[in-house]
């Protein structure tokens, strides 16, 4: 019998404050194969960040379980490294030290000192941040901070890489550049990735499958779309590609016709 690599089973999430309780997620189930790139898209407030936090273990689901390689995961850990929306680098450490902190903690017994240094440098190379290794986060641009955040997450050698709207706070050009880098890294390392986004183009460009969430409260998975585009993908060529256009418009239709945000209407 083959269990999926990562599986979310009947996740319910209810937030209770005082007497009132709000159901945020309703019976969310999802299976992810090893090496897959999955995007979760939905309007704001649909609980997609909550869902990611549950997979990360940062939030406890009210009901339901997350299995990773057949084991239940309910606490945070480096096997599910998170790239946070606002990078969350520690401002008192340099770029190098931020990544090194993760490397030192995760590989404290399995790698020697020299190997840990090498591994830190390799991950900085992967995101092309070696040149700024001794700078502090406040001294580099927003895009660079996010690249360091990605390097820190990759350096943990996670089984699943969790991206929480990683490019949301960046300008369009920087975002495109980072998307290309993430695609390249995904090609090289074949990570399993779960990405939260609200950008339709980003979702279609990067993902193997797009998970579309209905509006909250009580959000559930509305539809899952396969993106059968061959890799490597180039954004310029894809702009005229029929499959790309079809995927893009079906996500758009889902979001803006069938599940348009009520308050916005």
């Amino acid at each position: 019998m083959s269990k999926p690599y990562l599986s979310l089973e009947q996740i319910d999430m209810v937030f209770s404050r005082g007497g009132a309780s709000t159901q945020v997620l309703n019976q969310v189930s999802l299976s992810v194969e090893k090496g897959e790139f999955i995007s979760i898209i939905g309007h704001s407030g649909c609980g997609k960040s909550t869902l990611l936090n549950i997979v990360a273990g940062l939030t406890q689901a009210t009901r339901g379980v997350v299995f990773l390689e057949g084991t239940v995961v309910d606490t945070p850990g480096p096997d599910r490294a998170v790239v946070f929306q606002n990078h969350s680098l520690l401002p008192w450490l340099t770029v190098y030290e931020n990544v090194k902190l993760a490397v030192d903690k995760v590989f404290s017994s399995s790698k020697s000192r020299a190997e840990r240094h090498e591994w830190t440098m390799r991950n900085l190379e992967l995101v092309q941040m070696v040149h700024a290794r001794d700078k502090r986060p406040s001294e580099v641009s927003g895009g660079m901070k996010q690249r360091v955040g990605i390097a820190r997450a990759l350096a943990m050698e996670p089984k699943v890489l969790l991206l929480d709207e990683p490019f949301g706070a960046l300008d369009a050009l920087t975002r495109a550049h980072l998307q290309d880098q993430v695609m390249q890294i995904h090609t090289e390392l074949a990570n399993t990735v779960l990405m939260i986004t609200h950008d339709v183009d980003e979702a279609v460009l990067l993902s193997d499958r797009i998970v579309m969430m209905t509006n909250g409260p009580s959000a559930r998975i509305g539809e899952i779309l396969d993106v059968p585009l061959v890799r490597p993908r180039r954004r310029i060529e894809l702009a005229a590609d029929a499959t790309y256009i079809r995927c893009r418009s079906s996500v758009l239709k889902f979001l803006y016709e069938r599940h348009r945000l009520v308050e916005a209407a």
Partner: protein
Amino acid sequence: MTASPVPIRPNEKPPVAKIMTLALSPKTGSPRRFPQWLTSLAAHVVPPVITLVFLLVLWEILCSSPTASVPPPSRVVSETWELIAHPFYAGQGVDQGLFWHILASLKRVALGYCLAAVAGIALGTLVGQSEWAMRGLDPIFQVLRTVPPLAWLPLSLAAFKDGNPSAIFVIFITAIWPIIINTAVGIRNIPQDYQNVARVLRLNQFEYFTKIMIPAAAPYIFTGLRIGIGLSWLAIVAAEMLIGGVGIGFFIWDAWNSSRISDIILALIYVGIVGYLLDRAIAFVARTVTRNTASA
């Protein structure tokens, strides 16, 4: 909950801005221009010197009449020349050079302040981290911190039965409140993001304390430490006046009892300068340690 802000010296910022514009055009001026460091030094030193000279002249004029109850600066210098010239004089009992008096005071401050720093950061961490500790301790802290430093002295004299430990205790109890309160605020303000990073990395309690909590709260802690050192130096003079022995506070009290007004004025100048240097020292340590990385 936040403590009073550290005063900003008004003559610090604007000259810096001027220097920056000079630095942008280094070679365009005439070849006879002074070296840059000299110009920068002058910009910092000249204004306070002018102010000082003006004040001294004013003081000299106001107190020049022979019946004036406060001596003019010229008489202060001539009457205290012995003290100025021989700071390291070592005599009997309290008959010591001013250096030894100040050193004695500094030793008391150092001991009391260091104890306050350790205890204050520890208690501040506790209060900042635990909701129950805060509920239990914060009201008590808020009441105790309003007790004037000297009000503690009789009680500590009764407890320690000796002047020196009592003075040290007064310093301790004076300096500890701003340190506790600022540390607690700093710990409570650690962004959720850093805590999430720590959880994903599975940092243990000790690692979380040293790698996240202390660096994140450091700017707040140093604000508390800086207010604390100022208060300590304020309190030591008053406390020493009452306990006697070697120390700058008792020196002032002794001078008053023997009507040596010039000695008092000299001592006040020294107290001011030492207090200023202490404040600068803590500010320097703060800058070095936090490396201006309060936020990303």
